[in-house]
């Protein structure tokens, strides 16, 4: 097993790239259970990890391990049972203003009675940006996701991939420090998934955003990540935190063809198999 070699080689790189930057998102001893008494279900036992500014972290684990629960805790939608999560050192209590969310199911995250542009504008309304600033953010967000022509379309007039782009544009226009995505590309076709993964890398590059992606797709995690947080067991714990480093910029062709890519993927796959 070449686990050691991956870790040692990429760890040096990651230290160069991110550890000199501040910790943006920190999770410490996070635990979450539902219900109480006899019917109490412990979903997450103990999770700790850190994501530095500008880093992309993927959280992977077998299905049903509590990835979405973790994400909802990070988004302030569920209260924690124990431990803490913080952005820039400030404990997350309720949905943080510095965070934007992209949900897995785009059909349940876009308002069908609003056009793409109105959907993107929705979270900006209470920011009271002023008309010009708001319009320029909307134009830019639509442009970045390649939907400049589709602003007046309703979600149901768009394909699944385009709808997810609208959801991403909505998050972008909000200009969050941390972008959190819950299996964002799970329900689009393979071609669109590649495009959206590259869009994700592009966004990090252009906006210096910190991005946390929950995914069950190991290839996707390896391709996107600077850091993979593998979680497993029931209730969930961190199985391993794996730094990932490839020559930048990454590309769907060359990066995926690297021997190190295959190694990392095999390693993560084994971890997940063991964690079951």
């Amino acid at each position, binding site marked *: 097993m070449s686990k050691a070699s991956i870790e040692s080689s990429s760890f040096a790189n990651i230290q160069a790239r991110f550890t000199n930057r501040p910790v943006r998102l920190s999770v410490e001893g996070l635990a979450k259970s539902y219900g109480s008494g006899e019917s109490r279900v412990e979903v997450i036992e103990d999770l700790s990890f850190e994501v530095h500014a500008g880093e992309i972290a993927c959280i992977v684990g077998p299905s049903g391990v509590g990835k979405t629960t973790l994400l*909802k805790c990070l*988004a*302030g*939608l569920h209260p924690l049972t124990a431990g803490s999560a913080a952005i820039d050192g400030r404990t997350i209590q309720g*949905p943080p*203003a510095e*965070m*934007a*969310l992209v*949900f897995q*199911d785009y059909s*349940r*995250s876009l*308002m*069908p*009675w*609003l056009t793409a542009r109105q959907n993107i504008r*929705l*979270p900006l*309304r*209470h920011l009271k940006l002023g008309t010009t600033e708001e319009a320029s953010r909307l134009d830019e967000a639509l442009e970045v996701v390649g939907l400049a022509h589709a602003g007046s379309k*309703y*979600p*149901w*007039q768009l*394909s699944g991939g385009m709808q997810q782009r609208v959801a991403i544009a909505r998050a972008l226009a*909000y200009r969050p420090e941390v972008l959190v995505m819950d299996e964002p590309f799970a329900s689009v076709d393979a071609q669109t998934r590649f495009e959206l993964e590259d869009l994700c890398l592009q966004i990090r590059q252009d906006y210096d955003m910190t991005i946390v992606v929950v995914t069950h797709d190991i290839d996707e995690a390896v391709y996107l990540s600077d850091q993979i947080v593998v979680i497993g067991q029931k209730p969930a714990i961190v199985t391993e935190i794996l730094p990932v480093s490839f020559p930048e910029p990454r590309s769907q062709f060359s990066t995926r063809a690297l021997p190190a890519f295959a190694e990392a993927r095999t390693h993560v796959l084994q971890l997940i198999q063991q964690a079951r």
Partner: protein
Amino acid sequence: MRVLLATDTTSNKRQRGIPRRALHICLEIGVPIVLLAAWFISSQRSSNPFFPPLAEILNRFHELWLFDHLHSDVVPSMSNLVLGFAIAVLLGVIGGVLLALMRPIAWLADPLIHFWRAVPPVALVPIFVATLGYGNETRLVSIVVAAVFPTLIATVDGLRSVDSGLRDVGRAYNLTFSERLLVVNLPAASPMIMAGVQISLQSAFVVMIASEMMGTSTGIGAMTLLAQQSYASADMWAGILLLGTIGYAANALFEMARARILSWYFKAQKQGAAS
């Protein structure tokens, strides 16, 4: 490429859709005309006092409603209907929002609401006659009380069943309370609310007529009942024809308004069914 394909299929559909819609309109207008013609011809030589010839009924219709009693009877009925319905919808939506927001109160109110809903609207009229007398307020209050429940219940149900995904979006992006209510929850509930509003309209219409059949002498319902009691069959039929026409027109207007308000919903459903 996909976009092109999508627009192609919709335009194909539209091309097939136009004649179909025209046929629909033809049937909508044609069938009543055919039925009226059949009635007209078959009743031409009727000597049955309860089923006078349609020609006579139409004649009375013309004399009574165009426009002798228009101001004295049709206008009061219609204004009661419109006003009562409007108040009921407003109260129903506001009350529904409040009940949906305050769960404990909703639990307390639930049995009461469902009790009142279970009482046929017409049966409420005597209560108001007894408490408020025979004035116009009685009629208006009866209409409001009968029509408020369908909208109220539909609003509560609609707001409770808003998709949790949409709720999460509202919360995650820190939308304000009024944004969540007006831009997320009410639009999401609007298809259900509109279904309730349609039932409210029907109830309002029924109770408008019923309230005029008790103790009052003005209104279309009163005129029709009076005609029946004085064996003026043609007048009675003329009243029924007018009521039917008004009911039909009210529903048609409502359907038009709903198609406008919920156009996103119907189009999204069509799109969902097509793909």
